[in-house]
């Protein structure tokens, strides 16, 4: 954690009737951090972000955002934060420029400052050419970029993004990622993001909290989280003439933790699979084995999620999406 705390959450809870969407969650985010909440849909991410951004009142616990209590001083919090909700919220009937201009006015920013900032922000997200077109003519990725630019008009110190790349194609997703990276490099902005994409959390966030069924189940940097679970990268080698001797020989290598022969395929648990793959291949060849194929499975946050919950995020996803689609599920129940 760096410097002072941008977000301090203690035992925050939100119930919707019998359902507890967020269950006594506590964590801190330091200023300048890029912090992520990773979890399947319905885990409570949107409810949590809505409580932190004053849209929902917590039923228990408290949260201090930018120095102000979200339940007691919501107006002060709103002045200081920028929020990109999960659903697309720009006005389709207005142009990109008008969307941003009105937003700037909602924050009381005066005309001259607005004009300058909007131009440079539109430039930054690559929408300067389309500024005067109706948002209805934008693609999903353009609309998302506009919405990120829009909440930066008042230069918030703290940015909240709820599933910023949901529904975007891989290319647009990478554009948004690059843009977010640029933001955090530039100044001391703090970013809080929720996502159910492992890759998003892994590539963007300095620190990640994994959330499931309203509770934080693990928290740390992606590297820490992966190191914290038993088992390592897995190298699977299909060997033509597999033998017990070969398995033993491989097991004797310093970086190998375990070798499991399964139907002519060795599943070898190792440190740093990609780096040690050549050494493994050499060892197999040295003992006269012939390699038919090789795959390396590197550990990801998905494995961390599986480790703690016994299920994969994707399975959870498929199960939950069939009941509820998109954000705001708890809102509907409430």
């Amino acid at each position, binding site marked *: 954690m760096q410097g002072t705390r941008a977000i301090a959450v203690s035992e925050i809870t939100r119930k919707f009737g019998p359902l507890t969407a967020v269950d006594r969650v506590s964590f801190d985010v330091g200023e300048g951090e890029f912090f992520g909440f990773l979890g399947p849909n319905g885990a409570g991410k949107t409810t949590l972000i809505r409580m932190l951004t004053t*849209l929902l009142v917590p039923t228990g616990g408290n949260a201090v955002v930018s120095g102000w209590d979200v339940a007691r001083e919501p107006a002060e919090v709103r002045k200081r934060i920028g929020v990109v909700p999960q659903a697309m919220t720009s006005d389709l009937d207005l142009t990109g420029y008008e969307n941003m201009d009105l937003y700037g*006015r909602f924050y009381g920013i005066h005309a001259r400052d607005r004009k300058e900032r909007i131009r440079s922000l539109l430039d930054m997200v690559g929408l300067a050419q389309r500024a005067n077109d109706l948002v209805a003519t934008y693609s999903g990725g353009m609309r998302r970029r506009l919405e990120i630019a829009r909440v930066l008009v008042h230069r918030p110190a703290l940015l909240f993004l709820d599933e910023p790349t949901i529904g975007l194609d891989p290319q647009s997703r990478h554009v948004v990622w690059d843009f977010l990276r640029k933001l955090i490099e530039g100044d001391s902005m703090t970013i809080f993001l929720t996502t159910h994409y492992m890759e998003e959390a892994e590539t963007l966030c300095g620190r990640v909290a994994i959330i499931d069924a309203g509770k934080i189940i693990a928290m740390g940097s992606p590297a820490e989280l992966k190191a914290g679970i038993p088992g390592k990268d897995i190298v699977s080698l299909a060997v033509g003439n597999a033998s017990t001797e070969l398995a033993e020989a491989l097991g004797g290598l310093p970086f190998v933790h375990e070798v499991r022969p399964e139907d002519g395929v060795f599943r070898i648990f190792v440190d740093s699979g990609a780096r040690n793959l050549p050494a493994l291949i050499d060892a197999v060849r040295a003992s006269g084995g012939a390699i038919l194929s090789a795959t390396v499975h590197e550990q990801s946050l998905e494995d961390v999620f599986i480790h703690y919950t016994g299920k994969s995020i994707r399975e959870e996803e498929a199960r939950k999406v069939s009941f509820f689609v998109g954000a705001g599920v708890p809102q509907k129940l409430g």
Partner: protein
Amino acid sequence: MMIRFFAVVERDLLKFKRNPVVLAMSILMPVIYLVILGNSFQGKLTDLPVAVVNQDPGPYAKRILENLRAIQAGPRTFSLLGMSDQGEAVKGVKEGRYKAAIIIPPDFSKRVALSARPEVGLFLDNPDNISAETIRNLFGAAILSMRSEYVPIRENAGEAHLRDINLFPKVDYYQSLVPGVVIMAIFLGTLTTGVFNLVMDRFLGIEESYLLTPLTRAHIVSGLVASGLSITTGIASLILVVSMLITGIPLSRALGQILPLFLVIVLATLCLLSLMFVILGRAGHPRIVGVLSGFLNVILFFPSGAVYPIASFPGWLKAFAKINPEAYAVDALKAILFRNAGLAGVSGDIAFLAVFTAVTLTFSILAFKRTL
């Protein structure tokens, strides 16, 4: 801060401007309403099909038929179809082909001469109240005048005569609808602006992004009311001018009373905008607006005195008219347009509308939910 209030207003106006169809409909619909309403209530009935079966060759039956033919030729209220089969005629009424069947029995003239309770059969399609009533009255008159050989051209000179003295320029039925049509335009305007845009934003999930900004509930509610006010008063003023032109009320009457007229239109609009906010402030689906619009229109418009005078209402409906802002607005507009009342003449109506607005608007702001 005013910059925020005006931003809310401008956003709403911009969005309205981008949907010209809504604007066109808001103007066209009240005008069509005037035309439909003007023609569907007070029109005279004509050409109602009536079957006549005359079984009496005598003179009195002939007299009745002559009288009926005179009505057919004159006001053309019904067209007569001579028939011989009594059963067929009654069947025709039952099946809705004729509005009535008149059957004159064979001994009718004889009974008239003998004063032995002569009877004529009149079979009416009575579920169609208005037609049935008209035919009954006319037919009654035709029988009553059966004994007289001629219709007197001059009424009895010794009888007292009633002379109408109109205190104000004559107002025909069409003209009397103008205040109602203006109120209708205001109602439609307030239904499709103001809180409706909030409901739409909520439905589209856009509301979230505005709730996240430092806009206060007063900014949001008063901003939407202000934009709704400017749109609706514009439309209502246009409708007023157009309907005055259509019905032939001299425009000079409006020009001479521009201040009270404008004040009444503005206040009536504010009343309805705030009332809609109270009713629909928490609605999350435009369908709720759709379902309620017809209902609200009926319960506000018909007891407003725009179509039929409040004096004719039963007590409970009169009591409702006492708190119905449309009734006050109609009263004020009628006073200004038809009785040339000035500001002082409508001050009571204006006071009610102002208080109603203040109360409902305050309530809508306080009841506005600043969280999801």
